């Protein structure tokens, strides 16, 4: 192997391992403390219950409404976890030590993003079967085949989650440093993730209605572009976000 290729490979390996290190640390903390995940899960369950009571879903459900309900549940419970993600670092001033590590700030963001995405996705994975059970099993005109509905649904869940967690992770570190703290997070994030809400809910309801792929391909393009744009932009701006936590 030529020398420069070797150097490039080593550099990439080191970058990836730094991001994975932060990712592992976050999951380990969660594994030992078990704070965020149970809270998120129970909160999601409560939301599903509240929506079910409020809408009185019967067998003649509207797929659009059901998709909206599931995404509102994901986003509300997700933001709950994200608010916790950085406040955990504030305890014992752990974040200052995280900043002292000799890595670029954007790696810290990417590591945090990765661990948040995995945690939010895990809780969504646990909530989805219940959601199907509560709302869709005896719905009229639905065929819950594995490849036709469930796998595409999961795919959209992953993409949409990356979308709102990318901005959520970024702004939770900002919100915590403001005077208003946790109150600021939904205010900052909700108007910005409108594209995720529109496309994810649209695609999910199209999938449940059994539409062909071409029907929602454009929405999918918008969702993927949203993910790419904001993961890149946030990791770029993260350098400026945490420049000095003094003032």
């Amino acid at each position, binding site marked *: 192997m030529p020398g420069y290729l070797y150097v490039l490979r080593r550099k990439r390996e080191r970058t990836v391992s730094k991001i994975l290190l932060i990712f592992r640390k976050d999951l380990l903390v969660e594994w030992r403390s078990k704070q965020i995940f149970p809270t998120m899960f129970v909160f999601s369950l409560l939301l599903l219950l509240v929506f079910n009571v409020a809408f009185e879903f019967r067998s003649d459900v509207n797929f659009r409404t059901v998709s909206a309900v599931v995404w509102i549940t994901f986003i509300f419970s997700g933001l709950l976890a994200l608010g916790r993600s950085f406040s955990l670092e504030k305890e014992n001033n752990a974040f200052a030590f995280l900043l002292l590590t000799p890595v670029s700030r954007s790696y810290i963001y990417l590591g945090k993003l990765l661990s948040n995405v995995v945690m939010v996705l895990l809780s969504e994975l646990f909530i989805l079967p219940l959601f199907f059970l509560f709302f869709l099993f005896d719905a009229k005109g639905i065929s819950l085949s594995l490849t036709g509905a469930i796998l595409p649904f999961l795919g959209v869940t992953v993409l949409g989650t990356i979308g709102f967690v990318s901005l959520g992770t970024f702004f939770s570190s900002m919100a915590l*440093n403001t005077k208003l703290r946790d109150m600021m997070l939904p*205010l*900052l994030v909700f*108007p910005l993730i409108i594209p995720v809400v529109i496309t994810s809910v649209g695609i999910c309801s199209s999938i449940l209605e059994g539409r062909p792929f071409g029907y929602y391909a454009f929405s999918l393009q918008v969702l993927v572009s949203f993910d790419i744009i*904001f993961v890149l*932009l946030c990791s770029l701006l993260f350098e400026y976000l945490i420049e000095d936590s003094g003032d």
Partner: protein
Amino acid sequence: MLLRIAGTDPFSFKKMRKILFFLTFALMVLATWMTLFYAPTEVVMGHVQRIFYFHMGTVWAATVAFTVVFVASICYLVKETAKWDTLAYCSAEIGMLLLTLTIITGSIWAKPVWGTWWTWDPQLTTTFILWVLYAVYLVLRSGAGGRGKKARYSAIFAIIAYVDLPVVYVSARIKRGISPVVFGPGGGGIDPAMMHTLLVTLLGFTLLFILLLGERTRIMNMENQLYARGGRGG
């Protein structure tokens, strides 16, 4: 010219301010006269269409204002000098005012023409989200904390919000809209007199925005000086 007015010592441009003021005043009077008397009455919509010129004027100036916020925010993050932050803040405030006027004039126009004050078509949805985003921007400024933090956080938020808007518009477009397309394909022919009126109104509002921005920045700079002096005196 805009940046020279905004960024400099408050009292050294007295003469230019005066010229700008009279120019803006004359153009706005001219625009009002043209809107009311010079432009022909639209065949289908009637007199209510005349509000459209000021509607376009405010939305254009608001777009300029938010673009200034975006550029000034980037400059602030790169240079970290307070004048860019002041410029971004003042521009956001005026943009908010202009956008509110846009929504009000649009509503007045929509009621007789579409038969409703408000509808969730892509342009209206995007305008509404734009309004909310800059409302959040102003809330963030009031609730951020220290000066440096306030400036940095709001600059970051402004950049992300500005990048977010086209995506919001595209995703809202997935449903078809009814807002009129004046320029470009589908715009159709426009009476020359209407075009003249529109151009004068756009120019008038652009100058009005520059004038307001200059004045607001001047007041803001004075406030900052006073604040600094008070801080030193105890």
